[in-house]
């Protein structure tokens, strides 16, 4: 009874207040609004964290987009078995509705769109505030990188520098921008980034550096890359040499030192995606199980399929066996002198499962190639790149984990040196500073220093040092060599690697000279911009 009267009392009270329609003005209690983000310096620091996270999302989970762009798909250095974005490695079924191409397009434009808002908000607040100044520099660098990456892959871009609102979202006419217009914007943004970013990595909440944040060096490195595309060799040289002169950066004794361990925090790394199993470490949690990225799975063979082997941190953890160095890349090393041949690749896999050892084999023996098992060779025991593999760095508690939390490289100083060497080569010829900078990586690996270099030397050294780091495809395209390189060396034929059971070189014959220098504009984007037109060579 009492309950009923309580309900009655509430009912009466509510009925009275129902007349007041202020009741309908509800504010969200768990999510702030964009007004908050863009009206204070503190809000802007939150927004820029969002951009870093968006940028990294290419490399989380299956990390397909990171793998496609960084693991040298459709170049002369990689042999591909299957699985991850297969058509972009084989060029067999690529169409403008390709989901990975669409994601790369959309995600970069997302970054541009949010950067536009942050840049406008920062200009509103004034750059005198050091916090605003830094965020402004970071946002400018994000926007420049996104346009630059999009340009390299798609060329035909829509230029959009204003924040999107209800007032300007509709009724637009979409026309592609010219290369000159695009590069003007990219260079302006980078110059602003250089002017507003500091050399030092900012110190974070716990007093240790905020590894993974942009610095002046990252901006200068990207500015040099852009100059290379414009054949503006002097600007490239100046930007690179500024970085060389800064004491915060320096080459490590060996290439492998960059990649040993879970974290890419050393003087050779300019920008890397920060990954860890902590909240904020790019991992996703499903029912409490943390999942990192699957780049390591792609490069590590599925050796556990071999009788007598099981997943182990000594062998690289869990493997799917999809993306490997090809015979052409491995042929570029001086196997005796060049320490990178042995240190950047793993050639042997060792029996480690006492329960299923084949007859005659001992624990610790290397697995021998058996022609009868040629069909599984590529998947289970092909040589692998160790740059991304997880040798107990983050999976020692669980070698069966289907992911890794190792940081992922984006830019490092070795590329800056080779880029600088190439700029000197084009401007002043193959001796002098071109050779000096070339030797930074070449001689570091144990080779005898060269006093004069050729373009072929540069191309080979780029491959030896920076394979699987996203350098190859843009480099070949920039130098006009992509088609020839793919036709000559993409994948591996059985005649080149007799251990294979078949040819794995579809890209060589499928590469269409009038088309495959660029990706198609995604169908879903074209659907929304009638009259914009598809890229050359794509239907």
């Amino acid at each position, binding site marked *: 009874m009492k309950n009923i009267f309580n309900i009655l009392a509430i009912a009466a009270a509510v009925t009275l207040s129902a007349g007041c*329609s202020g009741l309908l003005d509800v504010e*969200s209690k*768990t999510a*702030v609004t964009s007004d908050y983000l863009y009206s204070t310096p503190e809000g802007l620091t*939150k927004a820029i964290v*969002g951009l870093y*996270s968006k940028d990294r999302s290419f490399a989380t989970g299956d990390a397909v987009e990171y793998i496609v762009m960084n693991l040298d798909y459709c170049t002369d250095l990689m042999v591909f078995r299957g699985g991850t974005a297969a058509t972009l490695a084989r060029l067999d079924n690529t169409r403008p509705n390709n989901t990975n191409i669409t994601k790369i397009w959309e995600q970069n434009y997302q970054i541009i769109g949010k950067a536009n808002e942050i840049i406008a908000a920062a200009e509103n607040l004034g750059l005198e505030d050091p916090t605003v100044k830094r965020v402004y520099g970071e946002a400018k660098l994000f926007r420049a990188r996104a346009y630059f990456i999009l340009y390299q892959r798609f060329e035909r871009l829509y230029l*959009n520098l204003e924040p999107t609102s209800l007032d300007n979202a509709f009724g637009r006419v979409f026309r592609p921008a010219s290369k000159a217009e695009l590069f003007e914007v990219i260079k302006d943004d980078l110059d602003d980034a250089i002017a507003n970013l500091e050399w030092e990595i900012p110190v974070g909440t716990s007093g240790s550096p905020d590894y993974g944040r942009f610095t002046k060096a990252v901006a200068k490195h990207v500015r040099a890359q852009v100059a290379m595309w414009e054949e503006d060799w002097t600007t490239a040289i100046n930007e690179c040499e500024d970085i060389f002169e800064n004491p915060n950066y320096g080459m490590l004794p060996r290439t492998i030192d960059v990649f040993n361990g879970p974290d890419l925090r050393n003087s050779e790394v300019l920008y890397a995606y920060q990954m860890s199993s902590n909240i904020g470490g790019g991992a996703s949690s499903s029912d*409490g199980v943390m999942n990192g990225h699957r780049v390591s799975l792609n490069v590590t063979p599925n050796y556990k399929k071999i009788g007598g082997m099981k997943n182990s941190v000594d062998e690289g953890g869990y493997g799917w066996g999809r993306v490997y160095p090809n015979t052409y890349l491995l042929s570029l090393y001086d196997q005796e002198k060049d320490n990178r041949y042995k240190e950047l690749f793993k050639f042997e896999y060792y029996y480690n499962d006492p329960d299923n050892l084949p007859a005659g084999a001992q624990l610790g023996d290397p697995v021998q190639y058996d022609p009868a098992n040629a069909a599984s060779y590529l998947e289970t025991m092909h040589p692998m790149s160790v740059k991304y593999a997880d040798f107990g760095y983050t999976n020692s508690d669980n070698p069966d984990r289907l992911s890794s939390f190792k940081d992922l490289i984006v830019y490092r100083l070795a590329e800056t040196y080779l880029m600088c060497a190439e700029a000197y080569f084009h401007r002043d010829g193959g001796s002098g500073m071109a050779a000096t900078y070339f030797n930074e990586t070449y001689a570091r690996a144990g080779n005898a220093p060269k006093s004069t270099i050729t373009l072929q030397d540069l191309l080979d050294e780029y491959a030896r040092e920076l394979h699987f780091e996203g350098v190859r495809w843009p480099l070949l395209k920039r130098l006009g060599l992509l088609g020839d390189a793919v036709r000559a060396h993409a994948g591996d034929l059985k005649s080149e690697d007799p251990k294979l059971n078949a040819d794995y070189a579809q890209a060589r*014959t499928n590469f269409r000279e009038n088309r495959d220098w660029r990706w198609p504009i995604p169908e879903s984007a074209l659907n929304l911009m009638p009259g914009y037109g598809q890229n050359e060579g794509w239907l």
Partner: protein
Amino acid sequence: MSVVGSKYKRFNFRVNADYDVFKWLTIGVTSSLVKSSNLAASSGLNTHITRPPYGSAYDDDGNILQYINSSGDKNPLYDAQYEKEQTDANIIRLNGYIDIHPFKGFSYRLNAGYYNRFSENGAYKKKEFTSGGAAGSMSNSSAYKYTIENIFNYDIPFRNDNHSLVLTGVIGYEHETSSSLGFGADNVPVDEFWWHMIADGENTSQSHSFGEYYILSYLLRAQYNFKDRYIVNAAVRRDGSSRFGKNNKWGTFPSISAAWRISQEPWMKKATWVSNLKLRASIGMVGNQGGIGNYETLGTVTDYRYEFGDNYYTGYLPGNSLPNQSLQWESTTSANFGVDFGFFKNRLNGTIEYYNTTTNNLLFNREINSVLGYTRITDNVAKTRTTGWDISLDGYIINKKDLVWNIGVVYSVFDNKILRLSGEVDENGNPINDINNRWFIGSPINVLYDYKTDGIYQYEDFEGQNPDGTWILKNTVDTDGDGIADAPLQRDDVVEPGKVKVVDKNGDGKINGDDRYIIRTDPEFTASINMSFRYKGFDFFMDWYGVYGAVRRNSYLSESNNGGSLQGKLNGIKVNYWTPDNPSNEWPRPSFNSLTTYQNALAITDASYIRLRTLAIGYTLPKKALKALRMQNIRIGLTATNLLTFTKYLSYSPEATTGAYPEARQFAVSLNLTF
């Protein structure tokens, strides 16, 4: 077939009480408690049905294997042992009313409702779970809803009994809040107690959400009735919702209806064969706010987390949806016309109804070009129309004491159309379709937009091969209009014998997005027929249901994860695929590497079906026997549901979405006793 680990328990409790306190006052309560516990299956139905047939779930000693073969295909039976997910829920409903009727014709009723749903979800994977375990999560969520209605009713007392007029006023209030709290952990030290030990592990995720909305509504209604012959209702309601933009929170929705019971007219008295004849018509508007979230108009942001080095940060950015402050009520205007009839003492009766429903200001997620940094906006400018006929007939063919035979038929046909989308026009002044959402002006709302296939490429379609092995298509395209084919059809993908042929819709000699067709998916009509038959103590009932003209994309014929991709990796449906020795023109050449291009379009198939939904037989004991047993009634019955389905659609169900459990086939035996 049963899927390991899936179990559902439910307990219902209900109490209703009415109490006449005074002559003029009635109070009452209805209350119910539902308690349920749902143990989810560890892997979906698809994992079970797509396991390759050459694997084995058990080793020679009968132990469950982790993988069923050396390709690493998971054994769903294995992981089921190490995984558990359970959701317990309580739903409490309390509805109280007070009815006051102080003088003749007037009443005031207060309805107060309280609804509370509380649920707790726990999920856990043990250490042995493939690819990672010793981890779990828990979440609580609760929703509270309060509703209050004040209903004023006045039945105006006319002296003349032929007239009746009832006036009604309603003031309504609705408030719902919902919140949830979740927590996940790994490295849980003890597996034995499933998720109950997760507080001892390392935190891997945490979440909280909160949302609320208010709705206020006012209604005025008048119901007029003359001699039960002419009936007119008119109403207007005004609704306010917290979800809409500041200046658009309120909407006004009038409606009116009229009915004429012709059979009650004095001049119809002679036509004794007409037992009932009624014409009715109505037109009315209702408001809808279901299409949007609680805070859609505010422009809330999404959280993004990042750990720079060892320093943790929470960042925020606006989401992919551009906020729209001007959202308002979506309104649906329906016009209905119907005839109800009964002839020959209702031995034949039925209803014919036509409806025409127009939805204005449709709340929909409209695509925006992603180059603007947003991909969609919830907008309020579209318009759709649905028209349809519903016809039902029911008749007694034989109606005798010992023999009754009844047949009923229901037939429905409907058509819908998009009349307006964003309102934007292209350069030529034509309205712009929303292609990515597959919405086209003038087409039905539910369509597919895909290519039409034209068989399979055969060797004869090619000139031959290049030295590098690539295939050269024969010329089939006439580029200069001289009637002679001078160029091959161009495609972005690699074309070889065994690939799917696609129709070049616009005839431009190349296959691209412009060659897609709009394909309606809704059925052309649905119909059901039921028949009941009784002879003495025996009774028999069956109900057939049919859907004609529905079209669906069958993912069991096109998606690799569902075994549909002809890659030979998972168990799939057997189709007549192309091989060099079997130049099939139906399905493409199997390809281990990937799904063949345009096989998706091949998988769009007719999903018409006819189903025997219910079949029941029973026997009722004769009166004589009952007397001896001192019983009023005894009936023994057998009921079967979903017994038979006839369809060409290649799946376990032409209706269920991929991976969902099929409609259960049930058999029930019943014994009814009346003392």
